[in-house]
C-alpha cells in the first residue's frame, strides 16, 4: 500500500467536498503546500473553511483560492499581506476568525492529540475571549479554547521517506507539524522522497503515521521580504 501519488491532483482524489474544512501548514509563504493549493484551485472545491496562520499573497499560496472565491472562511492570526483578502473581508464576502498565533497552533495540536479543549491565558480581557468559558486556576483567569479538527490537512516538508516520515528544513517546519496532525487525512508535498531507511529514526520530525498521501514536485519557494545586510568591511 504505497503512500506515494503521482501528482497533487491524484493525491487529492476522493478527499474533497464543498464546505469542507482544511488545515494548512506554512507561515507567510514559508513552508506552504503550494502544489496542493494549486491543485485545490484546479479541482474547484468550494465553500472551504481554511485554518492557516496566514492567507498567502494575492497571486501565491492561499491567495489563489481567495481570488477564485473558493474560501468561505479563514481561521488565521495574521492576514496583512493580502489585499484581495482585505477587500473580501471588509465587503463581507469572506468570514474571518482571528486566532492568536499560539492559540491557533495549539488548537491544531489539540485536535491531533485527542484534546477537545484546553485553557490558556492568551487573549483574556480581549475580544478573543468574548463568549468563551472563563475559569480561574491558582488565582489567574484563563479561557477555554477548542480543538481544530479538519477534514483534510495539507502540509509541505523538505523530505519524506516512502513510509511518510517527514523532515522539515529550518523555519519551514512552523505550522506544518500541528496542521498535519489535526486532519482526518493528511496529504504532504515534499521536495524529495527518499527510500525507507534513508532517514535516521532519531531525526524524524513527524512520523509517517500522520501522513496518508505523499507527492513530490518542484516548489517555487517564494521569499516575501527579502532582507539583507551590507557586507562588513573585512
Amino acid at each position, binding site marked *: 500500500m504505497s503512500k506515494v501519488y503521482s501528482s497533487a491532483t491524484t493525491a487529492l482524489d476522493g478527499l474533497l467536498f464543498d464546505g469542507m474544512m482544511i488545515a494548512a501548514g506554512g507561515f507567510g509563504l514559508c513552508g506552504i503546500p503550494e502544489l496542493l493549493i494549486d491543485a485545490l484551485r484546479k479541482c474547484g472545491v468550494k465553500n472551504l473553511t481554511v485554518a492557516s496562520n496566514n492567507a498567502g499573497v494575492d497571486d501565491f499560496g492561499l491567495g489563489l483560492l481567495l481570488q477564485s472565491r473558493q474560501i468561505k472562511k479563514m481561521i488565521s492570526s495574521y492576514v496583512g499581506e493580502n489585499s484581495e483578502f482585505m477587500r473580501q473581508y471588509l465587503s463581507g464576502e469572506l468570514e474571518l476568525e482571528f486566532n492568536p498565533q499560539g492559540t491557533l497552533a495549539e488548537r491544531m495540536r489539540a485536535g491531533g492529540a485527542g484534546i477537545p479543549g484546553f485553557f*490558556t491565558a492568551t487573549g483574556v480581557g*480581549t475580544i478573543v475571549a468574548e463568549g468563551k468559558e472563563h475559569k480561574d486556576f491558582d488565582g489567574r483567569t484563563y479561557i477555554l479554547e477548542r480543538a481544530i479538527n479538519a477534514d483534510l490537512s495539507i502540509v509541505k516538508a523538505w523530505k519524506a521517506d516512502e513510509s511518510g516520515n517527514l523532515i522539515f528544513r529550518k523555519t519551514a517546519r512552523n505550522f506544518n507539524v500541528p496542521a498535519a496532525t489535526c486532519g482526518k487525512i493528511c496529504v504532504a508535498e515534499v521536495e524529495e522522497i527518499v527510500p525507507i531507511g534513508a532517514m535516521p529514526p532519531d531525526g524524524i520530525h513527524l512520523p509517517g503515521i500522520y501522513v496518508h498521501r505523499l507527492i513530490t514536485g518542484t516548489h517555487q519557494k517564494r521569499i*516575501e521580504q527579502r532582507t539583507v545586510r551590507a557586507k562588513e568591511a573585512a
Partner: protein
Amino acid sequence: MSWDRNQMAAIAARELRDGWYVNLGIGIPTLVSNHIPPGFSVTLQSENGMLGMGPFPLAGEEDADLINAGKQTITELPNSAYFDSATSFAMIRGGKINMAILGAMEVSEEGDLANWMIPGKLVKGMGGAMDLVAGVGRVVVVMDHTNKAGESKVLRRCTLPLTGKAVVDRVITNLGMLDVVPGGLKIVELAEGVSNEQLRSATEATIVN
C-alpha cells in the same frame, strides 16, 4: 529634545541580562539586537519556530526556508534550534522567554496594551502578540509617546481593542521611561532634554510618584 529610534533601542537593551532568551517585535524592538552588551549571551527567539536568530543574510545568501516572524530573511547561529509553531508558543505561553520587547499603538496606566487593530481600518491580525504578552516573563513596550496628531498614546484607558490586559511592565518612549505600578505609571527616566513637565503634559495616564 528626546530619544531617537536608535537611542530608544539602546535604552531598551539595558533591560537585557546575560543568559536571557528574548523575543523582539518588529520596528524599533528589532534594533535592540544591535545593542546587546558585550560579553552577554542573549538568545533571540523568532516565534515562527527558532531560537538563536542571526542577522540578515548577505545578498545572495537568502534562504526561503529561513525567515523571522516579520517574514524577513535571516540567518542561523551555531547554537540555533528549530521547532514547530506549537512548540514555539508552548515555550512562550509557558513563560520560558524572559522578555518580550514590542511596539504599541496605546498603553494604559494599568498595563493594558493595544497594538493589533484599528476597527474599520487596520485588520491585519494579532499574530503572536497576544500569546507573547500573556506568556513571557517581562513585557517592555517601545513606542513614540504621541501619535502623529500629537495625542498621547500613554492613556488612562486604551481606546483600541486590547492585545492584553495588565500585561505591560515598562514603557520606553521618545520622551522617557515609565513603569507600570499600583495606581498608575511611575517615571523612571527622562529622555535627554525632556523635562518632567513635558513628559507629564504628553501623558494622559495617571503619573504616580
